[in-house]
């Protein structure tokens, strides 16, 4: 078995040190070793976006990142979005718009949409569709997802 490596990182604002094999993806370590199973595995080759997380604020597929690459970096996952008393506006709008059916792609979509709104707080429908094209949803046909993201953008801007 390969020698394990110590990795020091920050996950959802908390400092986290873990041991992993160099061949393990960030996705595998999050899910199997750290118990953060909100990040989902759909294809493990970067085509479905279900495993989307932010690495130092950049949207990445965690299946394409080696866990050792997160040394000294900040990882944001779906588990870090809501406050103890309140869902993130994107989470709330996904519920109100019925933007999820099975829900397996939802964490990835919410992380991807959060990443978009951080760069572009008031995207057009086309910009939302362009940005979310790296995330596959097989249930909804995307209609309600796009509406939820546009509505969340409006809500977040009104609050800001």
């Amino acid at each position, binding site marked *: *078995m390969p020698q394990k490596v110590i990795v020091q990182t920050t996950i959802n604002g908390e400092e986290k040190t873990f041991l992993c*094999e160099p061949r393990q993806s960030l996705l*595998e370590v999050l*899910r*199997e070793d750290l*118990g*953060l*199973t*909100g*990040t*989902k*595995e*759909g*294809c*493990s*080759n970067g*085509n*479905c976006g*279900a495993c989307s997380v932010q690495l130092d604020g950049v949207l990445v597929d965690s299946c394409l990142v080696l866990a050792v690459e997160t040394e000294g970096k900040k990882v944001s*996952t*779906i*588990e870090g*979005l*809501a406050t103890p008393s309140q*869902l993130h506006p994107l*989470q*709330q709008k*996904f*519920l*109100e*718009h*019925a933007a*999820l*059916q*099975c*829900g*397996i*792609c*939802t*964490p990835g979509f*919410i992380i991807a949409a959060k990443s978009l709104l951080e760069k572009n707080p008031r995207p057009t*429908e086309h910009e*939302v*569709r362009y940005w*979310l*094209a*790296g*995330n*596959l*949803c*097989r*249930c*909804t*046909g*995307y*209609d*309600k*997802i*796009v*509406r939820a993201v546009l509505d969340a953008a409006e809500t977040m801007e009104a609050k800001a």
Partner: protein
Amino acid sequence: MAEATATYKVIGTRPVRPDGSDKVTGRAIYGGDMRLTGMLYGKVLRSPHAHARIVSIDTSKAEALPGVRAVMTAQDIPEPEDRMAAAGEVAVNLKYLCQNVMARQKALYKGHAVAAVAATSVHIAEEALGLIEVDYEVLPPVMNVLDAIQDDAPKLHEELMAMDMGQKTDKVSNAVNHFQFKMGDLAAGFAAADVVIEREFNTGTVHQGYIEPHNATVLWNEDGHVHVWTSTQGSFVIQKQTAEILGIPVSQVTVTPCEIGGGFGGKIPVYLEPLAAVLSKKSGRPVKIIMTRIEEFEGTGPTPASHIRVKMGVTNDGRIVAAEADLKYEAGAFPGSPVTAGAMCIFAPYTIPNMQVDGYDVVVNKPKTQAYRAPGASNAAFASETVIDELAERIGMDPLEIRSLNGTKEGERRVDGPTFPRVGFLETVHAALEHEHYATPLSGPNRGRGVASGFWFNVGFQSSVVINVNSDGTVNLVEGSADIGGTRASIAMQAAEKLGIPYEDVKPMVASTDGIGYTDVTGGSRTTFATGYAAHDAALDVIEQMKGRAARRWDSEETPIGPEDVDYADGVFQCKKDAEKTLTFKEVAATLARTGGPLTGRATVQPRGVGGAFATHVVDVEVDPDTGKVSILRYTATQDVGTAIHPSYVEGQIQGGVVQGIGWALNEEFVYNDDGNMANASFLDYRMPTSLDLPMIETVLVEVPNPGHPYGVRGVGEVPIVPPPAAVANAISRATGKRMTDLPMSPGYILDKIHNGA
């Protein structure tokens, strides 16, 4: 029976789903998220050949690898019996079910499981697969129906005698079954036609494409009990199939359904559960197996490729007088394609006096096909609905008008026999005709508008619901239907409506096979219909019992009051003998302990009044004449939904089905090389629609209540995938002047049609 004229308090509203918070925060536990103490990770070795005899398997080197705790082959599964086993939407032959789970003498498709390993890490399990030595005698593969039905084609099942019109023949053939439906006089019908069009169609193999891969976590306990945690459309099907394959009683298997990340028909059969069970028994540890995406494409059920011939005749005034079809569907490696369903649906939207439909079930060296959203109907509608479009064009009639003129209605017969109850097909056509989309002219070069309709019969099957009344006036609703798209909400809403309490006061849960009565799969568009029906009836049972509790509060020697003296409406029990005496649902619930103890309502149903579903779609496309790329400009789907319990989730079913249909129309296809290997087994190369490929999908919910359900519910989930391939094809035809006969209509195909096609 439907309370059609009633005004509802809960039905028709759009509340947040009960499982919503868990699903947007990542807390919901899907099958792949399972983790048990001491759990091992399993991996499956799969055949690299599409057709091969397995000469020998040597697992000794894999067993010797440190960290490996168990290795299995088909020899570890009991020899299966050649008999039908009720399992899922249709009965399946146990022998084929078992052989599909793990190959015995022959591997019948690339990706067919041949061995499995359990190890302390997934990486060690993967390494161990490379150490298993399998000696194959490679055989020539048969990769499509037209090759497979040739007399000299290699035979997949050398012992299987073909069936013809319900009789066993003495012939071994890959065309394992042929049947025919007919009514009227076909020759006379065509003789009466002014225009007759006959065309042949080919459709490719497509996958359900759910984002969550198959998974199973199984513990074979020392006491002999097998516990399965999995993502499945039907926990009782997994229980039954697992027990049958392992040769143990169903009562020895418990299935706990985890949250499920999409199914669309593909998560009904077992694949991994029996393997994980055997590995668990051998290792004494729980074993989890999750498929990779490649395994999904190569080892799980796609929906079939098909070859279809359709011939239809129409009079100059638009009457369709004759229709004939031959449907040849790929079953995959084992018998059982959805060709029968395709044959039932192909001409169902129309009243045609003379019809004949022949169906052929053909085995080929591809994964065993499984259900995919209205299985078989989209292939069939692609053929029939494009021919109808061409007939309309030839006689100069609007394509919706010809559907309106010939559309079926209550009392008319389907080619396979049944007579329609109240159905809303014509209403969907009229809704499309009257829609602003259809009234708005489409202008611009290389653009075209297409329409198509579709039918799916839906199913009823069996469901159980238990409702427990809590002391605070809320209720817990226990059901057995996997919630793939918001059915906890749609079922709770029907219970709340009947109980006269707020939606939020009904707390639904999906129980394990030990926790609720038998319930069939979430499939066949049945869950909101049948499990909702059971919820309605269980709520009725609660109300009747609570009348007795209210009566007990009011009963006295002077004025004896029994349950029959109590009315219930709008959440309030009222004494018929004294209108001043009232108790709310909450008040009666609060005193259950002193009026007779806990109160539980229950219902089991097997509803017969299934309401068939019709849809009519309108789509505008633009074809790039240089690249052949087709863009969807606008899409409107009208559908008879019966009663929309939760309109947002009904819209979502329609939008999702439409987009799967667009993918099927334009991009999706298994590409095989000559050896029978799939060349595009990834989401990069098997291209499903992304958000960027699509406009918003407009929906029109036409509500023609189903008389067979207390709230008029029809199934809504499947029919939306039936019209899209034909609607898109008709739009492309109008844009290019060329008739589309193949799916998918990918850029290369379109360019070829533009430059060389008819």
